[in-house]
């Protein structure tokens, strides 16, 4: 708390600039999606839902949406189960190579995504899953495990080990303790972790472009559309993606905030 007024003002200016920089594109895209004009124009000359009609009337977009949703549901649930177990083992266990194992699990978040994409491309090709649906789900799972581990790692660490030990001493097995004692208490964190993993998968484009083959997710299709032609439909898709993300993060904020865990989960790490 030794900051002078001058440096504090600079900090505030930088913060406001960052906020504007991040939100201006949203403020342009969202109105544009409701534009009646055939070309991308800003400000929009009127109001219409034609691009939403075009989007929902296009079977290829609908298919991309269903692919994205199914992949996001499957991979986020898989990442939730695997990431939670990994977080539990790393927080509670003491074994040789624990730090190494944790680094390995977290690496998809740290290593540039393009490197992860190439690594997944090569390894999926090796096991014959390149371009397959299973491969796509597996890749998204690998990408989202670190997000789950971050949230669940904090949750497990903050949960008193002695509560678990008492449950064991009272005769409860490890799995019974996890289901009946831990999960009810960690539910807000589990929900947050699942949402992060879901959005992580739903927004993913780089790895998907490398390994998805014929499967088109929404972000991958957006990317491909942009290369071919600039069609205002894409602004409607973007608006929907923004809406889904904002609603999901609002839900996380609400659930974690009510549990008093928000600051902790977001600040730590």
């Amino acid at each position, binding site marked *: 708390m030794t900051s002078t007024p001058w440096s504090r003002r600079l900090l505030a200016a930088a913060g406001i600039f960052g906020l504007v920089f991040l939100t201006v594109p949203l403020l342009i895209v969202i109105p544009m999606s409701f534009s009646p004009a055939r070309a991308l124009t800003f400000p929009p000359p009127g109001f219409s839902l034609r691009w939403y009609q075009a989007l929902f009337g296009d079977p290829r977009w609908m298919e991309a949406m269903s692919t994205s949703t199914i992949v996001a549901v499957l991979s986020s649930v898989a990442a939730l189960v695997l990431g939670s177990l990994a977080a539990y083992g790393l927080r509670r266990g003491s074994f040789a190579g624990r730090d190494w194992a944790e680094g390995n699990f977290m690496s998809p978040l740290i290593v540039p995504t393009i490197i992860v994409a190439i690594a997944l491309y090569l390894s999926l090709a090796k096991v014959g899953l390149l371009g397959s649906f299973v491969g796509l789900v597996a890749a998204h799972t690998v990408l989202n495990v670190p997000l789950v581990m971050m949230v669940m790692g904090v949750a497990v660490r903050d949960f008193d080990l002695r*509560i678990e*030990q*008492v*449950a*064991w001493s*009272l*005769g*409860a097995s490890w799995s*019974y303790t996890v289901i009946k004692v831990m999960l009810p*208490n960690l539910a807000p964190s589990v929900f947050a972790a699942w949402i992060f993993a879901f959005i992580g998968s739903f927004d993913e484009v780089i790895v998907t472009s490398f390994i998805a083959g014929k499967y088109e997710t929404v972000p991958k299709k957006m990317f491909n559309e942009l290369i071919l032609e600039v069609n205002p439909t894409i602004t409607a898709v973007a608006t929907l993606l923004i809406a889904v993300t904002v609603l999901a993060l609002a839900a996380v904020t609400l659930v974690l905030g009510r549990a008093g865990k928000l600051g902790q989960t977001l600040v730590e790490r």
Partner: protein
Amino acid sequence: MSDIRLEGVSKRYGAVAAADEVDLAVAQGEFVTILGPSGSGKTTLLSLIAGLNRPTAGRIFIGGRDVTDAPAQQRNIGLVFQSYALFPHMTVLENVLFPLGVRGIGGAAARTQALDALKLVRLDGLQDRRPSQLSGGQQQRVALARSIVFKPDILLLDEPLGALDRKLREELQVELKQLQRSLGVTTLLVTHDQEEALSLSDRIMVLDKGRTQQVAAPAEAYLRPANRFVAEFLGIANFVGLADGRTGLVRPERVRVGPTGINGGRPARVVETIYLGQMVRYHLALQGGEDSPVVAALPFVGKAFAAGDEVAVSWDTADIWPVP
């Protein structure tokens, strides 16, 4: 027959021994306290008996059964921690029902049993509260009810009163002792508080650096400690040189302080007078002696010496314990 038996139990972490060849036999229904400073290995020893940790050497028997390799789930132990460790999402009653549910006991029978346990710890009427709505003392009672409701073979208490304030702690000590006696359950308590150990236990095991220093009844350990560490850990110790070159221990309660020149005694000066309510404690400097300062504790009867007063100090030879 002994209910808990440790035979050469050791727990090593690399070169450090948290428990070093510990032997102990606790009889059926006995209340034994493991007393030691922090880092003495007392909690490690308890976790070994509870099955939360595996010893690196030695065997552990509970009720004659070798449980060294049995997991905590199979030891039928009641466990209470200083931090209460209640299940936060469950009501008081649900917490107490938990061990019964695990054992396949449900319905009205379980409910009756749980409510009986809550009555034993004087919590009847609070069964529908959540732990967060209870005071520390009440939470610890819930933890106690939960640990005895399934009639465990032994009860393990890890600093169970350490988080409570002094008055409440003393109240709960009395209740704990009565409860333990009425249930007749073999109990092992861990604490660093020597007063708690002295007042609660049938026997005390003093531990330091993972090694047993002494196992004895409270009065025995207090008045006839096995070594200097026990003498100093269990209370204020006055050490005096003996004629044969050994060191003798005199407890402050055995030191007499009177006005000079009445019936002998060594001349001394009062350095400090401390009122403790029903007792008064004097820190004394013996005149012309090479002995260490002496502490005396006397019943306070309305009048006391003040700092700077010249007094006469004496003790009976019978009250001197030559420390081995």
